[in-house]
């Protein structure tokens, strides 16, 4: 009887946890729109982090818009003109940064939530405290007309959403290997499994695609200097049943990672190798110190004295290896997204 490979098991555990983590969203019809201001103009939804706003529109239509609007208004409204915007939270004290405004269609809910979270300085979330990193709801306004095209950049239909997702998968693949062979080598059914998994909240379907594309945090192939306490086993003992050859996350050319700062600062995307020049796995702190030196100064005894990184809704420990994070906690489009929150003293 073969014992499950511990690396495969823990990878699967964290991937599943990331998949299952959800965001609480409240949606209110914006003032001035038909249906606004009446009793039924607000809807609450719990969504996975990996999904997209266009995929939520059918439920929002059925459970909010069709209840708040009368028949004539429903006839006159067109979903392609709908758009969402983050609402100012009146319960929160003033002192936040610029809000994200209109929510982009190709951003996973995780990214919309990151921007909401980092939009104000916060105290360091402690593992022992009862409140999680994100105690608050994401509050969105639904507009039914005049979408700001220059901000939204694309229509909100599902085909466009799927295309954007697939392009992100390919871009991440290109970052890892300098080609998109793993993605273009997928059979159509495998690709469809990935998207269907996202649409239907089916982790196993999604994994059938993802396991062919995502590397594992296993030791690189024999011949490298990397030693690992968890020597990799042949794929046939992989409990997930995948027969594809498992690639090592430490053999990639670079890690698909994007880092987001508050106040509409530019996104940080750099070539980040999984192993540093010292032969050791690249840690999150090392890249924060390299690329955001002013927020993560080298000489500070407390690495998170000025700011701290969050991903998938939790604080990330500074010694986490980015290759591991990207293999185990990336979004359903293959990207590891890190939000940088300024620390409130």
């Amino acid at each position, binding site marked *: 009887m073969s014992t499950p490979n511990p690396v495969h098991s823990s990878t699967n555990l964290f991937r599943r946890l990331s998949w299952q983590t959800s965001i609480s969203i409240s949606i209110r019809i914006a003032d001035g729109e038909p249906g606004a201001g009446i009793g039924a103009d607000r809807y609450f939804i719990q969504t996975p982090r990996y999904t997209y706003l266009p995929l939520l529109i059918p439920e929002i239509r059925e459970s909010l818009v069709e209840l708040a609007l009368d028949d004539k208004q429903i006839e006159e409204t067109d979903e392609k003109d709908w758009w969402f915007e983050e609402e100012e939270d009146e319960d929160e004290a003033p002192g936040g940064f610029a809000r994200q405004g209109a929510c*982009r269609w*190709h951003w996973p809910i995780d990214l919309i939530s990151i921007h909401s979270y980092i939009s104000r*300085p916060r105290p360091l979330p402690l593992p022992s405290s009862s409140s999680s990193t994100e105690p608050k709801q994401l509050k969105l306004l639904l507009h039914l007309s005049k979408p700001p095209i220059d901000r939204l*950049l*694309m229509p909100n239909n599902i085909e466009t959403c799927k*295309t*954007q997702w697939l*392009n*992100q998968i*390919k*871009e991440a*693949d*290109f*970052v890892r290997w300098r*080609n*998109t062979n793993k993605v273009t080598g997928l059979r159509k059914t495998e690709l469809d499994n990935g998207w269907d998994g996202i649409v239907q909240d089916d982790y196993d379907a999604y994994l059938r695609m993802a396991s062919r594309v995502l590397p594992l945090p296993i030791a690189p192939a024999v011949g490298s200097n990397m030693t690992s306490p968890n020597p990799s086993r042949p794929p046939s003992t992989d409990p997930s049943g995948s027969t594809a050859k498992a690639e090592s996350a430490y053999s990639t050319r*670079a890690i698909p990672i994007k880092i987001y*700062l*508050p*106040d*509409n*600062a*530019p*996104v*940080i*995307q*750099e*070539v980040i190798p999984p192993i540093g020049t010292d032969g050791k796995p690249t840690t999150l702190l090392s890249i924060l110190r390299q690329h*955001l*030196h*002013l*927020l993560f*100064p080298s000489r500070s005894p407390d690495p998170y004295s*000025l*700011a701290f990184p969050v991903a998938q809704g939790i604080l990330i420990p500074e010694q986490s290896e980015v290759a591991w994070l990207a293999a185990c906690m990336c979004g359903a489009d293959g990207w590891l997204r890190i939000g940088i929150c*300024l*620390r409130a003293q």
Partner: protein
Amino acid sequence: MSIPTPDLLSPAIRPPSAETMMANSIVTQPTALEALEHYKKKDASKVVVRFKAIGSAPIMKNNVFKATAGHKFQAVILFLRQQLGMKKEEALFTYINAAFAPAPDDTVGNLYKCFGTEGHLIVNYR
């Protein structure tokens, strides 16, 4: 976007590193807010973009241009549409290294940093 580049391609000039700038201007450690202000600055340096037609797409007489690193890729798409004289309803597909279409809000600078080859960013179109 500016006038076409001369024959001798020059690599995109990178702005001075954060460390150099801070060392020159401030002795004590800056606060987080000051740091954020620094990181908010848009990258004004130029990236060389080389457009390459795919399939039966029209080939441009001059296909090398400079784009501002801090601009979103959407600006490149709009510029290309203008150069090709495309109508609003006509579709244009763009790819990096003939491999993937970037998100329209990815910055030119980031795309160049991560996917640039031989001093320029290859943008394929059809």
